[in-house]
Each structure stands twice: as structure tokens, then as C-alpha cells.
């Protein structure tokens, strides 16, 4: 699903060049549930932005579902984002003056689906999230967990191949975080690849694969069985 080879990315600010990603090789198969961890400045957000076609890269190559994602027009990038990728953000990023239903239906608006049809589909997705009765509430009338569920419904409505989640539980309490993770697991169960950026170990532990970034390179790449062991080690170290 995702194939990255020798990916480099620098940010140039004035005369200074900040080399953020220093050659990343990464393959993620269809249907994986992956978390990316790393301290701040390790390049995890930059990687996610490149994966989400929100930012471009300097060197290497990136294939998403067989398509080479290189310098492309913003219009084409928007179409890729719309069809292949669903975004879930830490701060939910719902549009404040649209109600839950309209927020969920928005990606279909950009696909020129008729209003009646997209509202019908959006209602279906809200129902799956258990939010049918909140459909006509504005975002500021919803709790954090509800907002994130609306955002997930919005990410799912365009039937993406990949869900990219940037700290999806960062603004939620533990109870709600677990609920959101349960939903994501369920979505993953339907075969959708999920990538989450997080710095919480318990959240990362719920995924099948953890990729740890350090100073712009992959420091660790741990798969499912090993995760539990690592968790115990971390627990032991804490004591």
C-alpha cells in the first residue's frame, strides 16, 4: 500500500537548512494498523504530512496504492487526498459553522455527489459511529469524543484506502481515547490501512506495528508479538 524509498526532506528557513527526514525506507502493506512514535522534532509529523500528500519531499520516492506521488498539481493532489486518504486530526478540525451531518458529507461535496445522496450516506456513517441523533448538532455542541467520531466518519465517507491520524487521542481523556481506538480497530478490521502518529505508549500498544523515529531516521520497527514484550519491558523499567 505504502512504499517509501530513501526519503529526504529539509526545511529551508532563510540561510539555515533543517534536514528533517534523512533517508527513510518504509513499506506498509494493505490492512496494517501502524503507529509512528518519536519525540518532538524526530520528523514524525513531517512524515505524516508527506504520506498525506499535504507536503512534498526532496529526494527518494513515495508510492501510494501503486501511484508515484511526486511533484504534482495541487488539483491532482486534492483529488488523491479525496479518494485515497482519510484524515483524522488531534484538534478534530471540524468546520465550525456546519453541523455534524454536513461535516461528514463534505468530502462527497468535492466529489460532486448530489446533496440528497451525500446526506443519506453521511447519515449512514454517523449511525455507525452511534451519532445518528447528533446529526444536526453543531460541533461546539458535541463532546471531544463525539467530535472525533464525527471526524472519523468524515474520513471514512470517501471510502479511502488509508486513514492517517495525527495524535487522534491527544485531546481526549483515557476513557474516550480507548473508545476512539476501538472504533479505529473496527475500521482496520474492515481492511482499511491505518497509520497513527502518537506519543502515548498505551495507544501505540493497541496497534499491530510500531515505528519509532529518531532524528529523521527509523530507529525501531517492531511488529505485533514483540509489542507486548516491549510494553512489559517499559513497565519494568518504570518500576
Amino acid at each position, binding site marked *: 500500500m505504502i512504499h517509501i524509498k530513501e526519503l529526504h526532506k529539509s526545511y529551508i528557513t532563510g540561510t539555515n537548512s533543517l534536514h528533517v527526514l534523512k533517508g527513510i525506507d518504509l513499506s506498509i502493506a494493505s490492512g496494517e494498523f501502524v503507529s509512528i512514535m518519536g519525540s518532538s522534532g524526530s520528523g514524525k509529523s513531517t512524515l505524516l504530512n508527506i504520506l498525506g500528500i*499535504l507536503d512534498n519531499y526532496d529526494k527518494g520516492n513515495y508510492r501510494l496504492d501503486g501511484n508515484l506521488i511526486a511533484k504534482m498539481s495541487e488539483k491532482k493532489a486534492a483529488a488523491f487526498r479525496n479518494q485515497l486518504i482519510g484524515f483524522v486530526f488531534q484538534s478534530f478540525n471540524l468546520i465550525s*459553522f456546519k453541523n455534524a451531518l454536513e461535516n461528514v458529507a463534505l468530502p462527497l461535496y468535492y466529489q460532486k455527489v448530489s446533496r440528497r445522496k451525500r446526506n443519506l450516506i453521511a447519515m449512514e456513517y454517523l449511525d455507525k459511529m452511534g451519532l445518528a441523533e447528533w446529526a444536526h448538532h453543531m460541533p461546539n455542541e458535541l463532546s471531544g469524543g463525539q467530535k472525533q467520531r464525527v471526524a472519523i466518519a468524515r474520513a471514512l465517507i470517501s471510502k479511502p484506502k488509508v486513514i492517517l491520524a495525527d495524535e487522534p487521542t491527544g485531546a481526549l481523556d483515557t476513557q474516550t481515547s480507548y473508545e476512539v481506538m476501538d472504533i479505529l480497530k473496527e475500521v482496520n478490521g474492515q481492511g482499511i490501512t491505518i497509520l497513527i502518529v502518537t506519543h502515548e505508549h498505551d495507544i501505540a500498544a493497541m496497534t499491530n506495528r510500531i515505528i519509532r523515529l529518531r532524528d529523521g531516521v527509523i530507529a525501531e520497527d517492531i511488529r505485533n508479538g514483540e509489542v507486548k514484550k516491549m510494553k512489559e519491558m517499559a513497565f519494568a523499567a518504570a518500576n
Partner: protein
Amino acid sequence: MFDRDRWQEIFDTLKKNKMRTFFTALGVFWGIFMLIALLGSGEGLRKGVSSGMGDMATNSMFMWTQRTTMPFKGFPRGRFYNFNNGDTKAMIDNITGIEYIAPRIQGYSQEGNNNVVRGERTGAFTIQGDYPAYNLIDPMNINQGRFINDNDIEQTRKVAVIGKRVQEEMFKPEENPIGEYLRINGVYFQIVGVVSSRKNDNEAIRDNQSIYLPFTTVQKTYNYGDIVGWYSITAKKGFSVSDIETQAKALMRKRHSIDPADTRAVGSFNVENQFQKMTRLFAGIAGLIWIVGIGTLLAGVIGISNIMLVVIKERTKEIGIQRAIGASPGTIISQIITESVFLTTFAGYFGLVAGVGAIELVNNIIKKMGDSAGMFKDPSVSFHVAVSALIILIIAGVIAGIIPARKAVKIKPIEALRYE
């Protein structure tokens, strides 16, 4: 373009920011309102001053006698002289380009005394001796009957044309003055017509308070011999009335033994000159109005541009979200432009309506005040000026939208999302 979501987006944004919307709209509203009000007032002023001149031919001049200021051929300075019938003939024979020449004379009247009598009613009115041509040079409305004609002149008939005010003073409202008699300075005249002025103010009052008699009758009846009071002359098409004025004055100096250098002995007034001065004045005023009006409009447009920039700044995050979930740059640009065009058109339209409304209001007040409004009459704005102002505004709205829209699309979605 007419997608419900697009419009919902626009209304929501505008509604959510009532204050901002209000002030932006106010800027454009005020700009177009001022433009319309200024143009309307300029037009009103022009019409007011023009109507003060009535329908007086713009190629006309007036000439009268004054005292000489130089001794000549043994005559002392400070001498009085009169024009006479011979002068009329001499001008017709010697000066080319004269269209109409109307000698006039003021009838005998004892200052301040009632000179006109009908039964028990009396009044003091100006008596004018006129040729038919006078009504072609400085036309009046003929309410009833006719003006003086050639037969009246040839046969020195004792007929009279009276001004509107004379009718009101000397007749009951239900009486028909035509065919009735007035005793004017002791002589009976039969009324053949009633006229009213097309001018404003003092000139109109004077016209309406006059009685017009055949020129020849006045000369004979009141013992003027062949004296002419003054002349009204118009030029034919293609001839300058200023040239005719110079020639006529030179001819008069020659015929009345006046020093050719004595410019003050023959008085004259040239409507052509006045009219040109006035035309230049109005061109100046119109130019000024346009400069000020367009300046005001421009200020409104710049205001809109500025506001749109601020709007984009405020909506950076929202635009980032839209792009992350697949909105193309085209969608976002057209959204922003539609918004600014909508706001400009809406506010501009109201400015237009309010401006026209204000002009109509002033118009009504002026009409209620009647003739006394003087320099200001019937202010109006032509339809195509109003519409083109609105079109300029809409185009300005598009331009005002494009700059911030391009800026909005240049923001990378990630930067927009990072923006808290």
C-alpha cells in the same frame, strides 16, 4: 455557481461575522451612494441654472444705448442718444448672419402708479412694445390666444398680450380674458393672448407681470416717434453672435456720431459668451464630481480587498481542512470570489437604491417649494450611469476577491492546519 452549499457557505460566513460584513458593506454602500448623490446634485445644479435662462436662444444678444464717454464731432461727452427705426433697417441691410431682429420699447408708465385699469380693478405693470420675432428669441408659453403678429405691427392694432400675473390681477378666475379690454395708460387695448414665462425667479416674475403690445402701436400711441428702446438679435446657424455684436455696435457708433473708440456708449449682453462660460463651469463641476465619486468608490473597493485579506487570514484553518479532505484550489478560489462579488453587489445595489431615493426625496421637496428653489432643479441620475457604476463595483468585487483568494491557495494545507 448556484449550488446550495456554496451559497450556504457564503451566508454562514457573512452571518457569523456580522460586524465585519456590516462595515465592509457600509464602505461600498457609502461609495456608491455618494457617487449617485454627487452626480444627481451636479445634474440638478446644471438643470437649475439652465432653466433660469428659460429657453432663451443661446445665439442671442441684446443691445441698448448708454451715455457717451468721449466727445466726438463736436458733441460733448455724456450725451444721451436713442436707437431708431432707421437703425433696424441699417442692421438688416448691412450685417449678414442676422436670423431675427426684434426692436423693443418700453411703454410709457408713471413710476409706481397704477397704469392699467379694468372696471374697478387697477394694477401697475410693465408695458413692452414688441415684434413677433421676440417670442422666437426668448420664448414664453402661450397659455391662451396668440402672441403679437405681423398684421398687428403693420396695422398698428390696439391689441395686447398679457402675462399670467396680469390675468390673475385683472380678471376673476372664471373670466376669459380673450376679447376683453384693458385701459393701458389711458388707451383701450383688446386682449388677444395670455403668456407665462419659462424662466425662474425675478426674470419670470417680470415676464409674467408684463403686457406685450405691438411695437409700432406703442411708438405711435405713446408718442415715441421712431425711437427704439433696445434690440434683441439672434444669429443664423453658422454665424457667431459675438461677430454680429461687434458689427452692430460699430454700425451704431457710426450712425450716431460716436467715437469709434468709445466702447461704453453702446451697451450689450451676449448670451453665447455667458453660455460658454456656464458650459465650461459645468464641465469643471462634472469632472470634480467624477473624481470625488470614483475616489469614494475606490476607497470602498480597497476596503473590501482589505477585509477579504483579513477574512482569509481568519479562515486559514478552515481552508486547510477543506483542502485536506479534497477541495481543489479552483473550488476555494471561486468560493472566495463569489463571496466578495456577492457582498459588493448587495451593498452596491442598496447604495444605488438609497442614492436614487435620496435624490427623489430632494426632488419632492423642491417641487413642494415651487419656483423658489432657484439654482437647483430636478436632480437625476441617468440609468446607464447608475448601472455602469454597479458593474464597475462588481468587477472591483472580483478583483478584490482574486488577491486574497490566490493568497489562500498558496497557503500549504499543513501550515493552515498547524495554525491555531
